[in-house]
């Protein structure tokens, strides 16, 4: 293996609103552990943006160096510019591991970069470790969550994307005297072949986004109609939570895909997850089984959702939820 490559590089995704994506701090925390196991290598970040003001977040989360690539043209994500810059920075700084959030942006960028560098990329990991040979051991679910696979990479750098909300942020992050290094983007002559001509933000039915809420009330096919979800919204309001859904409810057209939880939706990890009339297919549970506490309400005592629930209540959602709202308010 190429011994020239050293250290961990984290792609510090900046969101449309100019904020650091929260997955970056989750990656930073895990990267500290990996760096320790590698004998104390550096944990560095790459920021691509039109401006950069978040210095303190990087200092307060244990980054050694931050490579900052700034240009007016880089205000919004664009495959051609961003992949060229990421490749240039990797070639110049030679990290042994590159970690990227498995967001829509990360999953657009990462394969473009790994394919150019002819190196391996393990997608959507749920666990990262260093094996006895000092290689990145990246574990991820496959076959719709039915099987876990640990994947190694024989080229450098070893790349992985990690789903947001799967790894934990540090409770007491390390503070470092981070070095900020500005790098000039080499993008003259590159023709961006895509252009965002419009953006329509999702309308939020409840105040909270499911990927940020501490309480999620999720509904399934058993809710029978959009009105069923109104009931869940009431409960969500009473508990200060957000409403999520199974794919069956999304497919029925009762709620928007943006709140779907599971393999082809979002992964969530709230403090409390209440599954209402959801059967508990593995494609659903892979997206929610890391929640701190899980409650399931289902009228079928054999529903698989009870296998992941801390408290299972056999009964009718339409009878129990209104009563619960009443008791919570009273």
């Amino acid at each position: 293996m190429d011994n020239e490559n050293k250290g961990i590089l984290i792609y510090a995704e900046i969101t449309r609103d100019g904020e650091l994506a929260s997955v970056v701090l989750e990656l930073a925390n895990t990267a500290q552990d990996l760096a320790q196991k590698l004998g104390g290598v550096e944990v560095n970040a790459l920021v691509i943006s039109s401006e950069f003001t978040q210095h303190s977040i990087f200092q307060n989360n244990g980054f050694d160096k931050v490579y900052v690539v700034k240009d007016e043209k880089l205000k919004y994500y664009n495959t051609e510019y961003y992949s060229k810059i990421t490749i240039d920075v990797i070639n110049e700084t030679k990290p042994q591991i590159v970690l990227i959030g498995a967001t829509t942006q990360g999953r657009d960028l990462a394969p473009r970069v790994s394919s150019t560098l002819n190196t391996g990329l393990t997608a959507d990991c749920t666990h990262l470790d260093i094996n006895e040979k000092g290689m990145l051991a990246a574990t991820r679910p496959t076959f719709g969550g039915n099987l876990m696979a640990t994947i190694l990479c024989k080229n450098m750098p070893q790349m992985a994307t990690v789903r947001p909300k799967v790894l934990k942020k540090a409770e007491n992050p390390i503070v470092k005297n981070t070095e900020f290094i500005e790098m000039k983007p080499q993008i003259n002559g590159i023709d961006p072949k895509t252009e965002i001509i419009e953006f329509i933000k999702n309308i939020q039915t409840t105040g909270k986004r499911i990927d940020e809420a501490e309480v999620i009330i999720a509904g399934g096919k058993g809710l029978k109609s959009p009105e069923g979800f109104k009931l869940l919204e009431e409960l969500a309001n009473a508990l200060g939570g957000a409403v999520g859904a199974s794919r069956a409810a999304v497919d029925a057209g009762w709620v928007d895909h943006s709140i779907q939880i599971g393999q082809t939706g979002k992964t969530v990890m709230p403090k409390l997850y209440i599954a209402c009339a959801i059967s508990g297919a593995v494609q659903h549970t892979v997206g929610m089984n890391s929640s701190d506490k899980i409650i399931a309400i289902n009228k079928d005592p054999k529903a698989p959702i009870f296998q992941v629930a801390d408290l299972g209540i056999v009964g009718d959602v339409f009878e129990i939820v209104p009563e619960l709202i009443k008791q919570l308010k009273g």
Partner: protein
Amino acid sequence: MKIVLCIKQVPDTADIKWTENNTIQREGVESVINPFDMYAIETAVRLKEKLNDAHVTVVSMGPPQAEEILKKAVSMGVDEGFLVSDRKFAGADTVATSRTLAAAIKEKVGDADLVICGQFATDGDTAQTGPSIAQQLNFAQVTYVKEITDYKDGVLTVKKEVEDGVETIDVKLPAVLCMLKCDYEPRRPLIQGFVKAHDAKIQSYGMDDIKLSPEEVGMKGSPTYVSKAFRPEQKQGGEVITPKNPQEAAKMLKDFINR
């Protein structure tokens, strides 16, 4: 417009069974077209119907049985299909797979204008093959596409779903699109479609036909390898209670929530 579809045969993940040794049972498991690829097919056929000079070729890398899914695509309105199949392709990761598909497209289709794939395959679920094909072909790419809304002068307008909303994007061809589930459903083939599929000749090409070497394909051409596969930890379920009435149920829930 020359359109190429890349599709994959996958085991039905809703139908996974375990052997006694905790490995996935491969025999007797239903194979289906990767569900996202169904939307890719539908989208390609819709585009073909809108333009008057479009030709759609479908390609799959896989075992000889994958011919079935190519015929299915033809029955839905795709013009022709071919298979890339070779024992040497076994064990390919996404880099080797996309290299193989890109070479097949270059050799056997020529100058494609548009390549459409599914965003994910439900077995591997990596979402990497599409963008890697785009890189190999040096094409533009748009991932997480819900719909093609327009085409004019070499520019496609598409809708892309992101975390917080929907982007409308103009992309210059040639390009690769990776399709999510769409708001429209894949069509059921008509009787003429079945006849056309029945008569369709599906060519199969091996490694030499697409001018690749053993170092570039399969396990050898793959930078990653699986070191371990195991069954996920099963969480132990807690109590399952059947309360006497909704009042009692609500009380239990409230106590649990406030704990």
